[in-house]
């Protein structure tokens, strides 16, 4: 047979029928640019519409739901909405914006799998485990595996609050737990059931996964398994109800969701039909009964007994069909022609007062056409049915995945929606975002650290030399005084996550720009100087610069050709010992993913990854002997980057990465799993690795994250909130962030070409902000004070 690569290519070539350009030209037209005057007219109309939209929020017929003005919801101007995209903001759906100030400070974890409310609490199943918020004081409590919860990375799951307040949670790979008010535990007898023997194995596909769960008014728990089986628990008795093909009549995927009516009827959503089980017989509802075609993925029971369903947006099959109501006799379908914001839906829920809420998620209709979302369509919408009419509103900046984890309504009528930001709450008087607490996870036990079998003692046996005296700013200098605008500057392009290092001896930042030119930045006068050194480091966007304090050199670390910069002689020298780095790389397929200076050993430490086999090796470089030493291989397969060292904890700080859109850093098996990018700390003396759990996954595309290794901890620029957060080595958390509210809103700061600590002025220096996409980087320098969090512009962009 041909080799694997050829087989894959031939296979896809054979089935990948090209799209002919004539097909495109026939189906759509090239849009013309609209004159500015037309935009202005439209903007005026849109503002008028916006006012009307607030009326929606404050004039609902259910006054207990929406009965106050919205002082804390920030309305954005609609002046930028051109009239060529009228569908992006329908008349009934004005745009509101989640105020970042309302977002509690903690790193978000966006993979919220399910939400439920009950007993004064909001429950959310996240990648961390289950979070319970007290809805009165908004305090959060996090439950993980140490609390008995069957947390499994990558598994989807659900959570339900029973009428008696019992909380049930499941994972798709057959985990099941009940909360007793303190701890979670698996119900007795569950592990003896044939249906879960053998149990699914974490990390492997679960062929008979749990797909849905519901609890009836009588407390009976119902679990749907993928292999067309219904499992029920009545008190302590388990009952397996086989669901034959005849009963479900070949539903292609059964049990995507379940709900129990007041009379005990179990309603089961499946693709293309709805099933009703009264404990004895199954009834089926199909298109012939008036059910809308489409794949049903959500079912809810209203207080008046109406059954509501929503369908998956069947994009490839045709137009979305919205939601439908069954009143016990007839089905009524609601779509955008009836006032639903759009027929494509992300979540459906019914409040205790009977209000029906439909969430439209991610990139709703028209968002792609809205220039405000050129880079990342990120607007959601909510439709509300008061029993007679639908009304809707759009919500800006909610990110991808708005509502994909479901929604729930609490006793006060507040609608809670899963989102990338956290859990967004809308009650008509305020918009709140509850964010999943980041940082150290319950159940993270330092004794769980794993030490490798082989670890070179060089980092313990080598001692750093006395470092040259650190520079200080000359008396009379004012480091807060911005530098002269008219000065030579480095190339503002992206130069890497660690393209700068602070030379403590000279008090200057050494920076290798995107053009591979060497510059220094004087942090006392805020002035760039092009060094024009003898020699250059090997060109490498993303180059890792580390200042070796005891040798007073800057190392540009690469896998195959590192270089040493002598600031005093102004020379770059290629490292001669490249063949020894990291010691055994027969294929040469190594990359460097991070580097820091170890002030204990005086060596530069680099993380080397061997491509393809996920081997991560820590190496040490001694500039005095020009020698690399392979220290040891790190335990585990999870992807991580070495991004800092803490002298306080004597730990190397690694971070796992997620890209914030739900795509994975690791072995994801679905759309929104990225939990194996675990943060770690590693004892450099022993190699002992402690995974701190998935809670501190850094959100943001790797390519636009900046981080600062040359500080006494690690700083990262996070997404989507563009905060700079630092790692607290005492608590193993990333909870502390600089919001940057004093940073100009019109200057992109999704990342910086470099971030570097400035110990002279006790601040983090941020070089050349840039944004994701086509926007060019800005030539400017900012600083964040370590103590106050104040952002200061050290060098303004050049005058146009």
């Amino acid at each position, binding site marked *: 047979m041909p080799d*694997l690569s050829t087989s894959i290519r031939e296979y896809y070539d054979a089935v*990948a029928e090209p799209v002919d350009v004539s097909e495109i030209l026939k189906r759509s037209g090239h*849009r013309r640019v609209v004159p500015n005057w037309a935009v202005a007219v439209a903007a005026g109309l849109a503002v008028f519409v916006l006012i009307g939209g607030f009326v929606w929020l404050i004039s609902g017929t259910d006054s207990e739901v929406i009965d106050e003005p919205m002082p804390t919801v920030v309305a954005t101007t609609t002046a930028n909405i051109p009239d060529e995209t009228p569908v992006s903001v329908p008349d009934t759906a004005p745009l509101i914006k989640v105020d970042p100030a309302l977002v509690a400070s903690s790193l978000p974890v966006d993979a919220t799998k399910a939400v439920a409310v009950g007993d004064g609490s909001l429950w959310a199943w996240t990648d961390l485990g289950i979070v319970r918020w007290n809805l009165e004081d908004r305090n959060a409590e996090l439950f993980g595996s140490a609390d008995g919860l069957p947390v499994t990375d990558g598994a989807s799951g659900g959570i339900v609050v029973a009428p008696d307040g019992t909380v049930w949670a499941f994972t798709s790979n057959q985990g099941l737990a009940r909360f007793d008010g303190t701890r979670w535990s698996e119900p007795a007898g569950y592990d003896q059931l044939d249906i879960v023997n053998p149990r699914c194995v974490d990390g492997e596909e679960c062929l008979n996964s749990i797909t849905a769960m519901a609890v009836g008014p009588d407390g009976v728990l119902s679990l749907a398994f993928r292999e067309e089986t219904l499992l029920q628990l009545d008190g302590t008795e388990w009952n397996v109800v086989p669901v034959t093909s005849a009963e479900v009549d070949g539903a292609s995927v059964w049990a995507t969701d379940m709900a129990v009516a007041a009379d005990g009827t179990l309603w089961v959503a499946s693709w293309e039909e709805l099933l009703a089980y009264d404990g004895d017989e199954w009834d089926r509802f199909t298109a012939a009964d008036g059910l809308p075609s489409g794949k049903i993925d959500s079912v809810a029971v209203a207080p008046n007994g109406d059954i509501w369903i929503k369908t998956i947006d069947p994009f490839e099959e045709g137009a979305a069909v919205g939601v439908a109501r069954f009143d016990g006799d007839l089905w009524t379908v609601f779509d955008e022609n009836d006032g639903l914001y759009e027929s494509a839906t992300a979540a459906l829920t019914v409040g205790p007062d009977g209000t029906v809420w439909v969430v439209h998620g991610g990139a709703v209709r028209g968002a*792609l056409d809205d220039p405000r979302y050129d880079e990342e369509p990120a607007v959601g919408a909510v439709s509300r049915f008061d029993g007679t009419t639908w009304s809707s509103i759009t919500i800006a900046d909610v990110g991808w995945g708005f509502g994909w984890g479901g929604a729930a309504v609490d006793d006060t009528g507040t609608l809670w929606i899963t989102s990338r930001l956290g859990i967004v709450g809308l009650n008509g008087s305020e918009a709140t975002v509850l964010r999943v607490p980041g940082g150290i996870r319950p159940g993270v036990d330092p004794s769980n650290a794993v030490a490798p079998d082989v670890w070179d003692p060089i980092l313990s046996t080598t001692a750093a030399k006395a470092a040259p005296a650190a520079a200080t700013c000359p008396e009379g200098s004012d480091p807060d005084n911005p530098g002269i605008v008219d000065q030579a500057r480095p190339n503002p392009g992206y130069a890497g996550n660690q393209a700068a290092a602070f030379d403590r001896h000279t008090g200057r930042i050494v920076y290798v720009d995107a053009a591979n030119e060497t510059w220094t930045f004087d942090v006392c006068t805020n002035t760039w100087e092009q060094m024009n050194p003898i020699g250059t480091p090997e060109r490498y966007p993303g180059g890792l610069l580390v200042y070796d304090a005891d040798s007073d050199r800057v190392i540009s670390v690469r896998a195959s050709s590192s270089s040493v910069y002598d600031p005093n002689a102004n020379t770059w020298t290629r490292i001669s010992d490249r063949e020894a780095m990291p010691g055994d790389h027969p294929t040469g397929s190594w990359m460097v993913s991070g580097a820091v200076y170890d002030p204990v050993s005086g060596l530069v430490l680099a993380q080397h*990854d061997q491509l393809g086999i996920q081997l991560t090796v820590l190496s040490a470089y001694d500039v005095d002997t020009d020698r690399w030493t392979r220290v040891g291989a790190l335990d585990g397969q999870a992807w991580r980057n070495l991004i800092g060292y803490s002298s306080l904890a004597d730990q190397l700080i690694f971070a796992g990465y997620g890209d914030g859109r*739900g795509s994975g850093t690791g*072995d994801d098996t679905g759309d929104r799993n990225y939990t194996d990018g675990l943060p770690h700390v590693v004892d450099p003396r022993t190699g002992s690795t402690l995974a701190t759990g998935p809670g501190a996954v850094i959100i943001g*595309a790797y390519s636009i994250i900046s981080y600062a290794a040359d500080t006494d901890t690690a700083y990262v620029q996070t997404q989507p909130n563009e905060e700079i957060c630092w790692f607290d080595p005492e608590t193993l958390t990333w909870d502390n962030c600089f919001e940057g509210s004093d940073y100009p809103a019109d200057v992109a700061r999704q990342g910086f070409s470099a971030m570097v600590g400035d110990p002279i002025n006790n601040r983090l220096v941020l070089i050349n902000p840039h944004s994701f996409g086509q926007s060019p980087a800005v030539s400017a320098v900012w600083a964040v004070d370590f103590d106050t969090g104040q952002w200061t512009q050290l060098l303004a962009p050049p005058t146009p």
Partner: protein
Amino acid sequence: MVGSVEDEFTDFVKLYEPRLRIALMSAYGPERGRDATAEALAYGWEHWDRVSGMDEPVGYLYRVGQSKSRPRLRPRPDPVPASGTEPWVEPGLPAALGRLSRKQRMAVVLVDGYGWTHGEAAEVMSVSEATVRTHLGRGLRKLRAALGVTADA
């Protein structure tokens, strides 16, 4: 003038359609992937003023296609071509590809199958190059294990 713009777009499609299509098909299967490609290109044509100026439009249009072809909350079939339509290849290949996660499959198909660089795949997949390597390594390992072939085969 319209003709020249159409010519520009035609050249654009010739240049980028194959890469866009294979990216979307590797992610979503042939039917949905091809539809998404068509939708993305249609969007590109409708917004030609914007798209024509992009240096690297494949990643952008991939996300457009991805959005037009909404991700699902629930598992869905058809991640790989349906059996019976493929040429002769290793019989277990389609099923083995189908058992990979979407990102693993994309990395394997784009990088290993079509020779994309890690950077090119990373741009389309909206992940880092390192993540592409992670998915590629794991995907190939799974694929080889499923097919019983060695790394050198």
